[in-house]
C-alpha cells in the first residue's frame, strides 16, 4: 500500500511511539505528540500500537492513494475528505487506488494521525522511525514531508490486519460500523490540564502558585513540537536560586527568566536549567498536543499518586480495547 503526498501541509512528519533508549545521550523521545490518537489509529488496523504514522499539523494537506489502501485516522487537527465524503476516524477505512484524500480544517484541535495497515515503512534510526527535525534524522530523511514523497505500509501484515482488511475491502470507499471511541478515554473538559507539583514548585511565590492553578492561559504562536509557549500572567520566584541543569521530559512546565511558562512536548531537550513549577499528567499530554495558538486553557492540581493511577487506568482500558478488536476478528 502506497500513498503520495500532493500537498504537505505546514508540519507533516513520520512519527511512531518514540525513541526512548537514547535519553542519556540527549536524544529526545520525539514520537507522536498526541500519542493516544496515534495508538488508536494503529489499533484500529491491527498494527502494533507504536507503528509509524504520519502526523499532520492542522489541515491544508492532501495525499493520493497510489494503490488500494486500508488506513485509519484519529486526532482533532483536520477532517479527511475523499470524493466529497468525510472519512470517519478511529476505524479502518478501505480506499481504492487513485482516490485523492484532502485534509480540511477542524477547529477542534491541532494534530491528526494517519495510520496505514502494516505501519509506514521508513528506516529505523536509533530504534525508532520518528522524525527528529533538529537532529535531521529519523522519519523520511530526517525532514518534513513534501510534495511528491511516496510512503508505503509495511508488507508483513499481522493476521489481525489481514482479517480487518478482508472485512472491508471492496470496489469503493468503505468502513465498518465499529470504531474505537477515543472520547471515552478523554475527560469531557479538554481545556483543563491536570498537573502535579514539579521539583521547584515551592520556589514560586504563593500568588504565582495560585495564579498558575487558577488563571486562564493562552497558547503562544511560537509553539512547536519541542514545546508549547504559554502566555498569560507571569510567575515570580520567591527565592532567586538557580537550578543546575537536570533531566526534563515531555509534560514538564518550565518557567523562564521573564516569568513565562513553556510546556515541554515530544521533541523537547532531555535536560534543562529553568525551574519547573509543574508536570502535566501523562494522560493529559494528548490534550496539550491538540492545543493551538490563542486557545485558552487552565491548569488544575492533582496529586502524583492520582496521576500514576490515571495512567494505569488508561493503559488498562487500551489493553481491553486491543483485546476486543482481536476477539472480534480472531476468535
Amino acid at each position, binding site marked *: 500500500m502506497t500513498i503520495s503526498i500532493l500537498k504537505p501541509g505546514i508540519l507533516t512528519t513520520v512519527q511512531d511511539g518514540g525513541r*526512548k*533508549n*537514547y*535519553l*542519556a*545521550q*540527549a*536524544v*529526545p523521545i520525539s514520537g507522536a505528540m498526541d500519542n493516544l490518537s496515534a495508538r488508536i489509529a494503529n489499533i484500529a488496523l491491527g498494527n502494533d500500537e507504536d507503528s509509524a504514522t504520519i502526523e499532520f499539523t492542522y489541515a491544508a494537506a492532501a495525499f493520493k492513494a497510489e494503490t488500494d489502501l486500508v488506513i485509519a485516522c484519529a486526532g482533532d487537527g483536520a477532517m479527511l475528505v475523499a470524493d466529497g465524503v468525510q472519512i470517519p476516524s478511529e476505524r479502518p477505512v478501505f480506499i481504492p487506488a487513485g482516490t485523492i484524500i484532502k485534509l480540511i480544517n477542524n477547529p477542534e484541535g491541532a494534530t491528526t494521525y494517519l495510520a496505514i495497515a502494516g505501519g509506514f515503512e521508513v528506516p529505523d*534510526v*536509533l530504534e525508532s522511525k520518528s522524525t527528529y527535525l*533538529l*537532529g*535531521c*534524522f*529519523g522519519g523520511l530523511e530526517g525532514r518534513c514531508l513534501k510534495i511528491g514523497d511516496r510512503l508505503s505500509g509495511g508488507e508483513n501484515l499481522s493476521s489481525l490486519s489481514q482479517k480487518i482488511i478482508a472485512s472491508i475491502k471492496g470496489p469503493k470507499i468503505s468502513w465498518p460500523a465499529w470504531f474505537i471511541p477515543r472520547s471515552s478515554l478523554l475527560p469531557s473538559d479538554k481545556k483543563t490540564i491536570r498537573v*502535579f507539583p*514539579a*521539583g521547584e514548585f515551592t520556589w514560586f511565590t504563593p500568588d504565582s502558585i495560585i495564579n498558575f492553578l487558577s488563571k486562564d492561559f493562552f497558547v503562544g504562536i511560537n509553539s512547536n513540537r519541542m514545546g508549547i509557549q504559554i502566555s498569560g500572567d507571569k510567575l515570580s520566584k520567591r527565592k532567586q536560586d538557580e537550578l*543546575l*541543569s*537536570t*533531566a*526534563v*521530559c*515531555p*509534560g*514538564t512546565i518550565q518557567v523562564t527568566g521573564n516569568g513565562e511558562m513553556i510546556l515541554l512536548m515530544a521533541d523537547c*531537550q*532531555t*535536560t*534543562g536549567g529553568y525551574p519547573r513549577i509543574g*508536570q502535566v*499528567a*501523562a494522560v493529559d499530554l494528548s490534550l496539550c498536543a491538540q492545543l493551538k495558538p490563542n486557545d485558552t486553557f487552565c491548569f488544575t492540581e492533582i496529586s*502524583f*499518586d492520582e*496521576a*500514576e*493511577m490515571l*495512567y*494505569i487506568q488508561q*493503559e488498562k482500558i487500551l489493553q481491553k480495547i486491543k483485546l476486543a478488536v482481536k476477539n472480534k476478528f480472531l476468535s
Partner: protein
Amino acid sequence: MPTLFSELDFKIYPLSEHAVTLTFGSEIAELTAAKIARFNLLLEANPFPGFKGCVAGYTTLSIFYNLLEVSSSELFGENGFEKISHYLKSLSDNSKLDGRNFTPKRIVLPVCYVADYGLDLDEVARNAKLAVDEVIDLHTRQIYKVYMIGFVPGFAYLGGMDERLATARKLVPRAKVAAGSVGIAGKQTGIYPLETPGGWQIIGQTPLEMFDSGRSQPSLLKAGDEVQFKSVNLEEFKALEK
C-alpha cells in the same frame, strides 16, 4: 573516613509517571559527579523490572522506566513511585559492600586551533591578556570531566576549564556554528555536536563526529567520561576528517 563509594545517599522525587530523579548534592562537584556515575553503573548492573535508562544532571540522576512493568512487579510498595524508591534505597544500602573500582574512560579529542577554525581565538586571547599559543596551551593542558550530556544530542557539559580562559558569549550569536566547533562561554568549554546557531566563542574544531545517529552509541562522550584536547595542525585535521 568516608569514601566515594560508601556514601550513595540521595533524595528522591517523581519527575513524571515514568521517571524519578535522585539528588546527590547541591553544587557542581567532582565527588557528586562520581557518585552519580557510580550509581548509574550500579543500577545498570542491577536493573529492576521495567528499567529503561538514566539521564545524569550536574547533581542528579534521573531514572526512566515503564510504569506498567514496575507497578505489576513484585517490588515492595503501594504504587510505582514507592516501589522504585524502595528498590533504589536498598540498592544504595547494599552498595556499601561493593568495593569495585570505577575508572572513568578518557577520550582525547584532536582539535585544530588554526584561524579557519578558531574564529574567536584572537578575541579570547585578547580578553585573557594572553598570547594565542598560551590560550591553546591552557586549553589542552586540563583534564575535563563530562558532567552531563544534554541541550542537544551529544552535547557534553564539561567541567575543569582554566578560569583564565573565561570569556563572555558573543554579543550577537552566529546563525550557524559548524558541528565539531570547540567553544568557550563564560567559565565553560564545550563542543557543538550538530550544526546549530550559537553564541559561544569558537576557538577551534575537532574533526571527530561528536554525534552520529548511525552509530550504536551515537554520542562520542557519556556522562562520567574524562576529556583531553590535543592540538593538531591542518594536515592532521584533514586526515582525521571523514
